[in-house]
Structure formats: C-alpha cells, structure tokens
C-alpha cells in the first residue's frame, strides 16, 4: 500500500474518531428541555413501517413544541438513534441517551422493538429508567409490582385474541353459537406469534370453538402449504398474526386456495396499508384489528395537517402516508409521552422530568374521555389509565377495520376486552418471573 493511500486512510480514521467525540458537543444545548430519544429503524426489512411511524411521532412533538409552545413551556428535544431493529444497536442507543443529552433530561425511553424492550428489562431496573412500548410490550410486565420500569401500554395479544373471538361471536350470532366454529390462527413462528396460543386454548375451552394453530416460519414468503392446511381443516375464520412480508403473502395465498378474504382478520401488525396494498385486489374486504385507527378525520390529525404538514414541517417525505395506520400510531405514541409529561409536571412542577419522575408519571396516567376530547383524539385513542397494578392500562380496546382496496374503513367502535379474564394468569406468570429472578415485588404504598 502506498504512503499516500495510507495517509488518506489515516486521515479518514482520524476524522471519524474525532466525530465520535465531538459529535454530541456540536449539537444544540439541551438544558431546560425534555429529551425524547427517538429510536429509529430506517434501514432493514422493517424500515417501511417505521418511516410513517417515526414521522407521526416527530410531527406531533413538533406540533407541541411549535404550536403549543412545549409541554407547559418545556420544549421537547428529539434525538434520533438508529437501531436498524437490532438489539445490539438498540442497547448502544439506550446507553447513549439513558442519562439525557446535553442537559436535556430523559424521562422515558420508547425502544420501538419488542426484543429490545425485553433486553432492556434488567438494565432499566438497575438504571431506573422507564421503558415504554405502546402496543408491543411484554404482557407480563402489566404487573407493575414486578416490573416497575416496564410500560407495555395500551395493548396486548391476549386481549387481542379475546377481542377477535368476541367479534367472531358477534358475526355468528353470539358466544353460544361459537361451538363448532373453526378458527385457525396463522402465526409468525416467533415469540410474538406464539403468544396467542395459550389464550386461544383457554377461550376455545370456554366457548367450544375449534382452535387450529398453524405456524409460518420467518419471513413467510411461502405459505402455500399452510393455506392448504387451512382449507383442508375447513376453517371458518383465520386470525392472521403476521409480521412484515408474511401478511400480503398470506392474503394472496388465501386467494390462491380460494379462502374468502373477508373471513381473515389481521393482527395489529398485519393491519397497515403496507400489509394490505401489496396484496392487490386479493385484499379487498380483508379485516384487521386496529388499536391505532387510520384516517385523517380526527381533530388532532387535522391540526397536524394544518400546522405541520401543510406548513412543510412534516418529517414525511411522501404525504400520502399522512393519516395511515403507522402515522397515527406514531401520533398516539407521542401523545402518551406528552400526556405522561403533563401528569408528571402536575406533581413535580413545570420543568423537564427525570427518569424517576417519568416512572411515576407513567404509572399515574389517566387519559380519560374528557382529556381525549381536549386533545381532539376522540375515536383515535381509547381511555388509558395506569396504576402500579396495571402498567398497560385498565381497559384494553380495539376496533375492527376493513380494507376497501384503497384505504381502511372502520367497521366497529371500540371493542372492549374483559380486564378480568386473563388478569390472574398474567399475574401468575409475573410472580413466576419474580421468583425465577429473585425479585421482591413492590408493595403499593405510593397511592
């Protein structure tokens, strides 16, 4: 190697390493601001879902900063950190921002990955940093006594299974008519996908429907065999628990074997525009569970359109993504963050919150119908009330939506899951976890 090229390589190396150390210092001063470390995955197989999701987050926070002047005057500082949906890089991001950034405080971290959520459990407990995963957290972490710093807000897959069964019951004329109905669950063969096996077995025993479980290996680009099994078993309904490419392939393959598309109900991660659209005409009539309802006809979404999107301040490059499932999901997530800040500020004062204060705030969230109306989020979110006993929210609810070839139509209002049905089973799992890890559950003293 010539001297010249070695010099160039050395210089490049020096510049790179200098950037590592000087990088943060060059950015703006964050004192007096609240940090929102935005964990991104703009690369890799799941990037398509992140881009509108991240934009929803950013747009809402920009709206709060620029139109509302911050949360009670406290501006939110967004710092992106790319995880590429890997746990390793996620941990680096966590370590980078867990203690704040340039004076801006970290109140909570949204890891945007179920795997990362689990990986951070022990670290967050040690560091006392709340980890928030709306729609994608660990169900056992609902028990805030065992998991003080985990917040699996809004939704879980057991409730989802129950909502689906309730919906099907409604379609066949009541729970007593479920006997003999065949419900096949086509699941992504992973921890996520397998999570509904247990609740459906319980529900099947309770209502007498036939429970058929069929796995699809990751990534799920071939499903001919699985759909032939479904057809052979004579399934009446399919609960599609897909992820990524698995969903459109499932819808297309269903058409190939002649299974009616309006008898397929997608999981929340199978219910975005990007899940249905690639399936083309085969997806017309496809159903999905929705916790993050799409659409632009909500007060807050209209405000975002006016103040952010039309003002050219949106993070979206492609405005057709505005109001999609993932965009609205991002907005909803950002709302939970901002509302947690408000809750905390009400107790600790109108200033940036620390992680410990963030933990208290997240544990005492109460976004009731009145507050939802003030936010202009009627229909977009259902009431969310947390406590030390319940880090998910006391009432889990979802809508059923239907694909019309262009966009989603909302079929139902909020369908509410029975909060008591699985509560004991989940509590028992959390207790077993506590025993295995040698954790003494907290005693409820704060409230």
């Amino acid at each position, binding site marked *: 190697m010539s001297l010249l090229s070695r010099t160039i390589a050395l210089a490049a190396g020096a510049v790179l390493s200098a950037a590592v150390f000087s990088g943060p210092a060059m950015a703006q001063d964050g004192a007096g601001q609240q940090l929102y470390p935005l964990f991104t995955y*703009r*690369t*890799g*197989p799941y*990037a*398509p879902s992140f*881009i509108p999701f991240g934009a929803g987050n950013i747009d809402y926070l920009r709206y709060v900063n620029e139109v509302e002047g911050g949360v009670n005057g406290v501006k939110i500082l967004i710092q992106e950190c790319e995880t590429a949906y890997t746990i390793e890089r996620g941990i680096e991001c966590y370590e980078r921002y867990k203690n704040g950034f340039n004076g801006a405080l970290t109140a909570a971290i949204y890891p945007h990955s179920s795997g990362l959520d689990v990986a951070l459990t022990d670290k967050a407990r040690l560091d006392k940093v709340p980890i928030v995963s709306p729609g994608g957290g660990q169900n056992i972490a609902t028990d805030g006594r065992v998991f003080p710093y985990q917040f699996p807000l809004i939704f879980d897959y057991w409730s989802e299974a129950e909502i689906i069964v309730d919906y099907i019951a409604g379609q066949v004329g009541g729970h007593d008519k479920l006997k003999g109905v065949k419900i096949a669950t086509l699941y992504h*063969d992973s921890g996520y996908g397998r999570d509904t096996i247990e609740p459906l077995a319980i529900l099947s025993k309770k209502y007498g429907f036939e429970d058929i479980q069929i*796995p*699809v*290996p*990751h*990534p799920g*680009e*071939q499903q*001919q*065999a*699985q759909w*032939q*099994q479904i057809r*052979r078993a004579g399934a009446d309904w399919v609960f599609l628990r897909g992820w*990524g*490419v698995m969903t*459109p*392939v499932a819808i*297309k393959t269903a*058409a*190939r*074997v*002649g299974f009616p598309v309006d008898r397929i109900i997608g999981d929340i991660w199978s219910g975005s525009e*990007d899940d249905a*659209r*690639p*399936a*083309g005409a*085969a997806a017309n009539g496809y159903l999905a569970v929705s916790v993050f309802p799409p659409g632009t006809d909500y007060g807050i979404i209209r405000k975002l359109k006016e103040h952010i999107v039309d003002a050219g301040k949106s993070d979206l*490059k*492609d405005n057709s993504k505005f109001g999609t499932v993932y965009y609205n999901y991002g907005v909803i997530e950002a709302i939970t963050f901002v509302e947690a800040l408000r809750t905390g500020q009400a107790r600790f004062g109108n200033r940036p919150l620390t992680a410990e204060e963030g933990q208290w705030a997240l544990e005492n969230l109460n976004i009731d119908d009145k507050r939802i109306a003030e936010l202009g989020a009627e229909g977009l979110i259902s009431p969310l009330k947390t406590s030390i006993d319940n880090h998910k929210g006391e009432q889990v609810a979802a809508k059923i939506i239907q694909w019309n070839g262009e966009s989603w139509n909302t079929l139902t209002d909020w369908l509410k899951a029975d909060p008591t049905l699985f509560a004991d089973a989940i509590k028992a799992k959390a207790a077993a976890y506590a025993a295995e890890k040698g954790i003494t559950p907290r005693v409820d003293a704060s409230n």
Partner: protein
Amino acid sequence: MAFFLETLIAGLFAGLMYGLVAIGFVLIYKASGVFNFAQGAMVFLAALVFVSLVERGIPFWGAFALTALLMAIVAVAVEALVLRPLRNRDPLTLFMATLGLSFVIDGTAQFFLGTDVHMLDLGIDDIAQDYGGILVSRFDIVASLIVIALVAVLAAVFSKTRMGISLRAVADDTLAAQSIGIRLPVIWRIVWSVAGFVALVAGLLWGARQGVQFSLSLVTLKALPVLIIGGFSSIPGAIVGGLIVGASEALADIYLGPIVNGSVSTWFAYILAVAFLLIRPAGLFGDREIERV
C-alpha cells in the same frame, strides 16, 4: 390423495420459482467460480427499479428494457470494481466480496428509491382454478411457462452460440480458456448481465407474489440448498434441484410439521441438501473434480 397431489403440485410450482432464482447463481458460478450472495440483492434491485419506473408512468416493456439495461450496467461495474481486482483469489474471499456487494446494491437501491412496499401487478390473476378437483393458480401456470421459456432460451444460447461455448470453456478450465484467447472480462460482463436479466424476471415474478420490498433479497437463502442438490454448475440441475426442494419442503411442512409442532421449512431444505452432499458430493448434475497432486 387429492390433497397430497395438490400439495405436491404447489410445491413443484414453488420449486420452479426457486429454480429460477438458482439459475442466476449457476450462471455466475460457471463464469466466476463464486456463490454470488448478491444475487438476492440483484433480484430486489431489479424489481424495485422496474416497479418505480412503472409507477412513474413508463409502460411495461419500456420499464423492462430500461431495467435490463441497468442490470447490464451493474454487471459491468461489478466486473470492473470487484471481480477484476479479486481475480485468482480463493472462493471464500470472493464469496465475502459478494456479501459486501449485496450491502452496496440493496443499500443503493433503497437510498434512491426508498424503503416502501410496492405492489406489482403483472396483469395475471393469482386466483385458484379447479382442474379435476385440484386447485391450481393461473399465475403459477403462467409463471412456470415463463420460467420454462427462459430456461429453453438460455440453454439454446449457451449450447449454440460462441459466447456459450466460451463460457463452458471458462467453467471447465479458466486458465486454458484464457490461453486460447477467451477474454475473461468480456465473459464476466456478459454473464453477469444475463444473471441480472434472470434476476429481473425472478424479481417480477416473486415481486408480483409478495410485493416488492427488502425481503425479496432473502431468496438467496433458498437458492443455496437448491444449488447444492442440483449442482452449482448446471442449469437443468438448478431446475431439478428447485423442484426437489419445493416439493419436499411442501410435503415436509404438511406431514412432518405437525409431528414436531411447527413449520420445518426454514431448515428442511438444508438438511436435505446435506444428505444429498453425503451421497453425491457434487450434486445431481455437477462435475466432480479430480484432485491432482
């Protein structure tokens, strides 16, 4: 029985699609002696470029020709920037270079064209039709015809034309081929272009099935066992290997899957490939090399 047949037929159709992807690998293996991991990225690139062109209003055949041209440009660039500097290096080095290449290709594709999922409609219905009690999709039939036609054309080109004969000479003995005046860089450029064209066809057929997105590039992983079974250097081998993998995978999923309580198709092809290797180390159609000491 009808169910068995239906599974088998569906598996064979899927296998033909695997075979289509595998052909791209075979071509490059014959010319450059490397398992081109970037072939999957090329499939993705071709499909993404094509669909982006169509979305911008360019008619089907125009987009097709433009994409084919782009794949040829990629081939020339790969030859100049990767293959030539790495000439005469061991196969593992070349393999890792193609791994790096796959990062470059799919990164570039997404850098310019974004990471959205695109729908690709070739105008062929993908719905079930009943043939004597057995459901077969029309799309599968059309796709199979396209694959068969492509194989026929490739086979004719490689057995009849001078280019094809040169390629065979290169595959047999690179040094000897060079000594009789075959210009390796030219062969490489042409073969990589043809492989790019095969990637385009594969990208369209697969993309029409599952949408055009990043996971298209994962087809690489399905191609490896196909190649091992069929032999790295044989186009008919790629097709037969594909059929064997497709059919056995489908049957294993149906009949073995329930026993082990899960789908076995991620690894079944690999175990099958290893079994084949133990019985026939050069694959069904490959040549066994004689060791000279």
